[in-house]
């Protein structure tokens, strides 16, 4: 039976369920226990599972993420919460040098059933050090998988699937999504964790996006429909691996590609998406692919400048209209 949940509640349910089913699942991070998690994702779990399975940590991101790696080596299934993605920069050694490489370096002896969850993105005036997106860095690491749920249902499914996986998986959660509502059907059969979803069907162009920007793209597509442009919106859901087949199948139909990302434009996820699809679908494309992305600047504190530094619905609408051959003032 489907019910309406907030994004954080969906994550909370998923974690709770996996912890109750499997005693090797435990979670740790700053203020995940007594406090209940900065975004409430671990609410109630400390009381239910106790301090060994819901561990409040010191501010030692490198240390406790590495601890997660060590625990995973011995068959535990740790879910590390890094309070926000900005602090994951201190844990990159554990993530990149250890979690991603140990399975390979050991000749496959060691699986790495580790999940590292982290909220990120541009939220509300949190300033440059607290408004980061790191997909560009993490995508470039062979051995790491990255999931980017944009809806409560995907958050629920993908967290459960990530915990069940024997690969190291980074879950990028967007800070502005935690309090978004959506239907969650716990009984429904989930699609494969990396499979992209076609959030809206269309014939005139394909908009590829992920995380919060996928939701903005769907809203932009609705506005475009009022202007007689039918955009197909693909929500990638996973940034490594990327479900290229769903993307290229769409381009066969629409022949036009618009990529929308919140991360900075230079060497971002969009660069990879466009490069790869240009190789794959070159003969299907009727126009040069277009990218909308964050400005290549640290996020300004000022509210208006912050808003100007990332894509908005109207930016997507304008770019789509131009790509579809409509003059945007028309």
């Amino acid at each position, binding site marked *: 039976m489907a019910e309406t949940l907030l994004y954080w509640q969906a994550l909370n349910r998923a974690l709770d369920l996996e912890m109750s089913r499997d005693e090797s699942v435990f979670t740790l991070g*700053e*203020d995940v226990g*007594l*406090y209940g998690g*900065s975004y409430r994702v671990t609410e109630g779990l400390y009381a239910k599972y106790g301090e060994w399975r819901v561990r*409040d*940590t*010191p*501010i*030692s*991101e*490198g*240390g406790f993420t590495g601890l997660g790696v060590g625990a995973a080596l011995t068959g535990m299934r740790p879910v590390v919460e890094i309070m926000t993605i*900005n*602090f994951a*920069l*201190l844990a990159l050694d554990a993530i990149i040098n250890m979690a991603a490489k140990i399975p390979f370096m050991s000749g496959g002896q060691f699986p790495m059933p580790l999940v590292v969850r982290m909220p990120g993105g541009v939220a*509300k*005036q*949190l*300033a*440059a*050090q*607290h408004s980061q997106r790191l997909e560009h860095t993490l995508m470039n690491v062979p051995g790491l998988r990255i999931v980017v749920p944009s809806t409560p249902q995907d958050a629920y499914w993908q967290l459960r699937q990530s915990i069940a996986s024997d690969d190291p998986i980074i879950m990028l959660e967007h800070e502005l999504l935690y309090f978004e509502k959506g239907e969650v059907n716990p009984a429904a059969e989930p699609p494969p964790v990396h499979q992209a979803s076609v959030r809206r069907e269309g014939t005139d162009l394909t908009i590829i996006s992920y995380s919060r920007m996928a939701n903005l793209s769907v809203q932009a597509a609705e506005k475009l429909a009022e202007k007689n442009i039918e955009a197909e919106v693909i929500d990638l859901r996973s940034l490594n691996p990327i479900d290229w087949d769903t993307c290229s199948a769409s381009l066969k139909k629409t022949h036009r590609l618009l990529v929308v990302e919140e991360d*900075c*434009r*230079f060497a971002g996820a969009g660069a990879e998406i466009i490069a790869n699809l240009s190789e794959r679908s070159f003969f299907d494309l009727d126009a040069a692919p277009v990218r909308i992305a964050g*400005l*290549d*600047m*640290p996020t*300004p*504190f*000022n*509210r*208006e*400048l912050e808003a*100007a*530094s990332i894509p908005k619905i109207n930016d997507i609408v304008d770019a789509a209209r131009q790509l579809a051959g409509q003059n945007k003032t028309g």
Partner: protein
Amino acid sequence: MDRDTLHRFLYDMLLARAFEERAAEEYANGNIAGFLHLYPGEEAVAVGVIHAAEPSDYLVTTYREHVHALVRGIPPRPIMAELFGRCDGICKGMGGSMHLFDRERRFMGGYAIVGETFPVATGIGYSIALRQLPEAVICFFGDGAVNQGTFHEALNMAALWKLPVLFVCENNHYQIGTEIHRHSAVVDVHKRACAYNIPAEKFDGMDVINVYEATRHALARIRAGNGPQLLEFETYRFRGHSMADSGSYRPRSEVKAYAERDPLKTVINEAEFGYPTSEQITAAGPDVISRLVDHPSAIDHFDARHVEQIKQEVANIVDDAAQFASQSPQPTIDDAWASLYGNRQHETLMEDAQHG
């Protein structure tokens, strides 16, 4: 303690309290957004430490740094304007509340990633030592920051190379919602310094004169060439960790015990700015500010009227700062690009490579 010094402490502490309460109010009014970490309860630390420093000493602070900036002498106007994110902010609205910088006053930044102040201060100490200058750098950090690797790495390097760094722990016993016994195996922060042969001591951080004297002595040892020193000041934040946090995880008995030392408690949670009367102050017993008031009053330095005068004066200053901030223009996107690329004076790059 001479009258002028005491007067300056009192003035700065009252200004600090008033400024922070006003910032909270402006946050509630929607003029300030984002993370806002306030300092009420901890004023004696920043005021005592920074008054003991020379203007030529560098300061490196955390995200809870408005008061440090004020005490260093940055006028309230550009600080408040920065909190508002405006053009006339000390960082032109680019950095915000957690990232105050003032190159001229050697205010080397508010850092919002816990543990960043250690290496930055160590680097500043390194350049002072290399140039053989009689300066020092003061590195502020919280009790939660000492479990970051950078603490240990920086202390070792500072001790190894005898760098002129004064490490100052503002121990308010909490790392957001996690109490110190739940985040640290050794809760006496100063004891950790002995692992690196750094002289360290703990003091009551609610008593500004105490803080000032301890800092003066530590800085004197640094200037005498004894290398880094560490001071731990025990203090308490009266508010939540930031405006997004109620602080409700703290046992009532504990909050009460500390609040009893603060007669301002009744006004702290009120949206309206105001101060208790001197009768209320006496009735509530000693706290950070009233202890300071009591002391000079007892030795006939100030009378209650004088204190009221200062309160009025700082209230006006804070009003003026808020007024100034609200009238300051919004920065433009060109201002933002200029902040990013303005230092490329000697190089010409392709236009396109800059703006993407």
